[in-house]
């Protein structure tokens, strides 16, 4: 037990407070707290605090501790405050007892006590107390002592957290805004910090309304406040949007010295500001080059800090390297791995090494990677082996060395090394076909040691793909077939495809095998993906082996160099979040931060002052030529979809229409599920099980009936993306010309597009008493050159009360004049009575042409090319459709899905469409699948002629809502 009187010279430590755990402890403490002796009291409070620290419940002592509060001993006061903050919540009534002392302390002549009181009061999260806090807080915010003011600024944030309404009602937010102009930099920094925190929970409020004057104040304070204050100010600056490149440059100049700060968080926040504002600077500027040079050293220096700091720095460097590879291109060596780096640092370094790999440094990189492949840590070794494969794909000149390195590694027979090597060799085959197949024999030797699905699938793919060169391919595949049901889906799908390939190459010997696998897949499997694929192959093989060959053995598109680049839009957003958690997770904060109530998406500022200004949207694209743009292909997770897509890839030769021999019965058998399955495949994503059967197949409007070539024809249409037979969405007819305005002639109509032909469907009603005849129609010049392709043919005169329905074919070769709104069409109709004029708005999607599907690579390149200021964002509200349904609906109207990805639970559709006048519009559609509460779609449109975006959006909305 604890001794009350310390003998002089005895070792005084606090560990004695931990020795008391017995029952009567609380009782004893109570007695000591009420002791007359100051020293005894203090020791008792210390003991209470110590118990509290280790999580013991000492709340029963509340009244006794609060009694000690009225003291002139600062230490005792602080200790009591500590206790209060911890327990006031559970004892709100008792806490009231402390209010008077607080209020009194807020008037104390000693600023330390004033600040302490207001600070502690803010920490007591009890409503009754906060009411009493307002007056003292107001005084403290205007206190003569800056120490008190800066403490009070933080207190506003605390109070806001407890009771936001109160803070607003009391006008504290305005006072806080005034503090941004305070003469003391520390007060400024704390005000900024408090406002930022409040703004985070109120994204819409315009709390940090930054203008050039306030920016100037912040920049001045930046030089003089503490390191932590600098972080707050820099983060705040990063949200500012300079009005032009000159302002951006001047801010950059004043922020650059922060790059030499010893605190790494200051450095990274400064990097964020610079990376963001750099976007506005012209690349021709000397200053741009200088800035690039200045960014490299501080980033490298971060790597010599503690491992935890290194990790965060590396995650951010990963983003920076993708956005601006030129900054660190000469710094490869600092990313070389040391054997005693923590594993999380090793993996990140490896990733960046691959990103920086180029022809110039590839020899060094490969030597390093080979070294790593013999290390002890399994995860790291695997990643190193994979990295060798990525090098081969990225730097063509190194492919041969990479392959031989991989073969050396396979010779080691270390199980996981072999498996990784096989997975990457498969990718190398796809990048450089017919070049390294001589190594297949070596690979086959290791067949038995493969036990991971990915490696097995890769090996099976290789065997199937090169079946004609492997003598015993059938035996090899048969050996896998034995345990078919125990394999993972990935392997099963791959095995199915490989055996079909084998059959098409060597039909005579393998008939039995293919029948076996098809029946396993279609009859004995519960997996809809597998079953569907099995059925497709089965039908193909049984109806038209030639077509089957064209489909299954189609030439594959080459794999592209980078497999895991972050999408450009996401990357730009993440650059705005450098140094934050978002940058560590490589996800926008909206995707993971709890309680982020509608976080505002940040975006990089548009570049100004250079030749690619906004005035000429059709001007030459900025940046590198499209051929240099790395393309994104699905990562490992999407492997399955990728392969599926490949197998069904666009036939290269031979007209797909040759499938007319297909029985219509086949269509029935395949059913709607197939349609939607195929549609989702177009996006190169895994067609997920259940959905392919449950999703409604709204492929073709019912009135059109099945096209003559049936299901398979449809299949080719979809994958080929040409000659879709279905028509686009048709709105119901509306009255364009009321009878009373046109002497009894009523015209209602709508526009439609079917099989590439635009028509204006009109309904003419004679509501007059006389017969109408001699009809003619003419269009005024319009934005897209719409004109009647044939005269309006109404053969018989229109008797009173008679209605005639007519479809007027249109073309787009008429004269062009820009209208406002863009889709306005002015029409003149003449009959025997008079000439009538009316105008109508046509939906833009009648102008979407059938060959509006862009190649993936092209899409990416174009997306990057189109300047950011041409991007328009829209929201489509209340559209509870799944990605597949959306995609198929849109495709009906010639909006084509180029790719589909799933990013943090959201489906992203990348779509393209082309207008009759050749304008391409690219779209990114964000869908929250499966959440009934988030039915809004987010649509970003990019187009060289941004003025059409608005109308494309309207078209989207019309199509999706009908």
């Amino acid at each position: 037990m604890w001794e009350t009187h310390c003998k002089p010279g005895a070792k005084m430590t606090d560990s004695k407070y931990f020795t008391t755990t017995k029952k009567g402890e609380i009782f004893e403490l109570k007695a000591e707290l009420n002791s007359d002796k100051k020293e005894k009291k203090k020791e008792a409070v210390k003991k209470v605090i110590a118990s509290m620290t280790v999580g013991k419940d000492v709340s029963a002592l509340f009244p006794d501790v609060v009694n000690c509060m009225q003291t002139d001993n600062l230490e005792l006061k602080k200790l009591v405050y500590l206790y209060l903050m911890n327990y006031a919540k559970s004892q709100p009534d008792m806490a009231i007892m402390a209010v008077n002392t607080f209020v009194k302390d807020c008037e104390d002549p000693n600023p330390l006590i004033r600040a302490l009181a207001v600070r502690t009061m803010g920490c007591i999260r009890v409503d009754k107390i906060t009411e009493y806090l307002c007056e003292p807080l107001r005084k403290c915010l205007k206190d003569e002592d800056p120490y008190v003011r800066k403490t009070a600024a933080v207190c506003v944030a605390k109070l806001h957290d407890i009771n936001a309404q109160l803070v607003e009602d009391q006008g504290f937010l305005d006072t806080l805004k005034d503090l941004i102009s305070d003469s003391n930099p520390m007060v400024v920094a704390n005000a900024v910090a408090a406002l930022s925190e409040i703004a985070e929970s109120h994204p819409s409020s315009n709390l940090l309304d930054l203008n050039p004057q306030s920016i100037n104040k912040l920049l001045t304070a930046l030089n003089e406040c503490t390191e932590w204050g600098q972080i707050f100010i820099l983060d705040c600056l990063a949200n500012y949007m300079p009005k032009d490149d000159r302002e951006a440059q001047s801010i950059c100049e004043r922020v650059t010295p922060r790059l030499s700060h010893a605190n790494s968080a200051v450095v990274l926040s400064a990097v964020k500001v610079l990376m963001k504002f750099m976007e506005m600077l012209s690349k021709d500027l000397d200053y741009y080059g200088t800035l690039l040079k200045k960014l490299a050293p501080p980033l490298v220096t971060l790597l010599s800090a503690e491992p935890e700091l290194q990790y965060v720095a590396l995650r951010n460097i990963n983003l920076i390297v993708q956005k601006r590879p030129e900054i660190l291109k000469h710094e490869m060596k600092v990313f070389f791995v040391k054997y005693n780096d923590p594993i999380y640092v090793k993996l990140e370094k490896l990733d960046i090494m691959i990103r920086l790999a180029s022809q110039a440094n590839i020899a060094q990189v490969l030597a390093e990677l080979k070294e790593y492949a013999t290390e002890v840590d399994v995860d790291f070794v695997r990643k190193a082996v994979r990295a060798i494969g990525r090098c081969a794909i990225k730097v063509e000149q190194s492919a041969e060395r990479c392959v031989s390195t991989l073969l050396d590694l396979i010779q080691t027979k270390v199980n996981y090394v072999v498996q990784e090597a096989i997975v990457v060799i498969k990718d190398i085959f796809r990048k450089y076909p017919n070049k390294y197949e001589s190594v297949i024999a070596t690979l086959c030797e290791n067949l038995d040691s493969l036990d991971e699905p990915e490696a097995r699938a890769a090996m099976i793919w290789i065997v199937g793909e090169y079946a004609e060169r492997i003598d015993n391919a059938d035996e090899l595949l048969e050996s896998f077939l034995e345990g078919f049901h125990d394999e993972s889906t990935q392997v099963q799908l791959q095995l199915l495809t490989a055996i079909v390939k084998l059959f098409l190459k060597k039909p005579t010997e393998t008939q039995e095998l293919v029948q076996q696998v098809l029946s396993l897949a279609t009859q004995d499997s519960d997996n809809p993906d597998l079953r569907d694929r099995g059925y497709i192959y089965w039908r193909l093989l049984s109806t038209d082996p030639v077509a089957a060959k064209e489909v299954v053995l189609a030439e594959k598109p080459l794999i592209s160099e980078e497999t895991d680049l972050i999408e450009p839009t996401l990357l730009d957003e993440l650059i705005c979040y450098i140094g934050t958690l978002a940058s560590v997770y490589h996800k926008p904060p909206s995707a993971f931060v709890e309680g982020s109530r509608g976080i505002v998406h940040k975006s990089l500022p548009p570049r100004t002052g250079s030749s690619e200004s906004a005035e000429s949207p059709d001007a030459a694209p900025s940046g590198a030529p499209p051929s240099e743009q790395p393309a994104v292909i699905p990562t490992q997770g999407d492997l399955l979809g990728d392969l599926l897509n490949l197998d069904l890839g666009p036939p290269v030769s031979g007209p797909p229409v040759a499938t007319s021999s297909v029985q219509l019965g086949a269509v029935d058998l395949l059913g709607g599920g197939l349609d939607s399955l195929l549609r989702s495949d177009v996006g190169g994503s895994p067609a997920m099980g259940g959905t392919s059967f449950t999703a409604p197949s709204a492929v073709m409007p019912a009135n059109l009936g099945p096209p003559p070539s049936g299901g398979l024809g449809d299949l080719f249409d979809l994958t080929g993306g040409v000659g879709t037979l279905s028509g686009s969405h048709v709105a119901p007819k509306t009255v364009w010309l009321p009878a009373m305005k046109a002497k009894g002639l009523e015209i209602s109509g709508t526009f439609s597009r079917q099989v590439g032909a635009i028509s204006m469907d009109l309904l003419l009603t004679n509501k007059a008493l006389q017969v109408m005849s001699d009809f003619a129609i003419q269009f005024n010049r319009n934005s897209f050159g719409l004109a009647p392709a044939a005269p309006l043919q109404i053969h018989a005169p229109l008797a009173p009360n008679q209605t005639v329905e007519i479809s007027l074919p249109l073309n787009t070769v008429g004269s062009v004049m820009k209208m406002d709104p863009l889709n306005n069409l002015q029409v003149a109709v003449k009959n025997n009575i008079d000439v009538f004029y009316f105008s109508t708005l046509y939906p833009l999607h009648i102008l979407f042409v059938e060959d509006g599907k862009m190649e993936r690579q092209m899409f990416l390149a174009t997306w990057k090319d189109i300047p950011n200021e041409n991007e328009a964002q829209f929201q489509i509200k209340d559209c509870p459709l799944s990605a597949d349904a959306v995609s198929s609906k849109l495709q009906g109207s010639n909006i084509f899905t180029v790719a589909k990805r799933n990013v943090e639970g959201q489906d992203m559709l990348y779509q393209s469409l082309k207008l009759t006048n050749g304008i391409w519009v690219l779209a990114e559609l964000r869908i929250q699948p499966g959440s009934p509460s988030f039915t809004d779609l987010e649509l970003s449109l990019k187009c060289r002629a941004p003025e059409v975006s608005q109308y494309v959006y309207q078209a989207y909305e019309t199509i999706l809502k009908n």
Partner: protein
Amino acid sequence: MIHSLFLINCSGDIFLEKHWKSVVSQSVCDYFFEAQEKAADVENVPPVISTPHHYLISIYREKIFFVSVIQTEVPPLFVIEFLHRVADTFQDYFGECSETAIKDNVVIVYELLEEMLDNGFPLATESNILKELIKPPTILRSVVNSITGSSNMGETLPTGQLSNIPWRRAVVKYTNNEAYFDVIEEIDAIIDKSGSTVFAEIQGVIDSCIKLSGMPDLSLSFMNPRLLDDVSFHPCIRFKRWESERVLSFIPPDGNFRLISYRVSSQNLVAIPVYVKHIISFKENSSSGRFDVTIGPKQNMGKTVEGVIVTVHMPKAVLNMNLTSTQGSYTFDPVLKVLTWDIGKITPQKLPNLKGIVNLQSGAPKPEENPSLNIQFKIQQLAISGLKVNRLDMLGEKYKPFKGVKYITKAGKFQVRT
């Protein structure tokens, strides 16, 4: 901002918790323990862990995990920097940052944490200011306090808190005015099998110990400032002056602090002071291997290389090692499989050598990986980059201070692959 802090020892006990906002239950640490278990090695626990409602950002220092809980988007580097600052402060106050020291001084720890962070915002982290607010424990003071009943808490507002030089106390007085600068350079290098340098750079710092009265304004200039192109400064340094004149001009904090840290990376400037000849090989199917390592001086500018220690993490299959050394002594830890060879000073006339037999577990396959050699050494009175202080001038005060500069070069992460 930072919500809570938990201190956890290596055996997984939470021995201290501090909450700056509402109380977060200890159970949040379960996610940390899970990650710790997965990482196997304490050093491999990822520093940022996400849980359903919080984020845990942790550092590992002196066998203690400092785990902070955060709830909103916050710069992780800010949190990590702050946690290191907490650990530094404990070190500064208690002489060591250990579980015992923290438990022995739990109330001071609590007071410090309260003073360092308010509502998650850093308040006072400069040691000068903290020491004015809360006096560090000394045996003498606690004795005096217990007799007189006085407190170890400052009663006045720390002077540095709000001035433009928050790092310095106002009334500093010394009888002996001294300013010492230690130029310490560490060589980080990776040397490959054949002895050529894969990567090398110098991490340098200038640590200062300044005990000068009043408000001295110092300028430190170098013979060859061009070496310093990648530098991080203490906030006291005037950046403009450095940009224009390459002179370090500053009003120093009182006591010990790091003035600058710098990096010299251009390959030709990094001299490698030692070389290693090594044969480490394992025979196929014989469960034994050969070990033969010699170390010698190279490019050491005529100075002696001393304090040389070679550490080797041998493969798991190694049972024990029978070696003889011509100089120094060696130990092999059969549990961790670490060979440590403490050599001491290298004399060029007789190069230290360690050789002998490595015994493997019988039946174990020949180890695939080749162990790397980790080398430590020291060279006194030499900054390997060639950096030299030219002069130190003082303005603002009248007395003549005693000035001193010391140079030392050490091995940082110096690895030789075999």
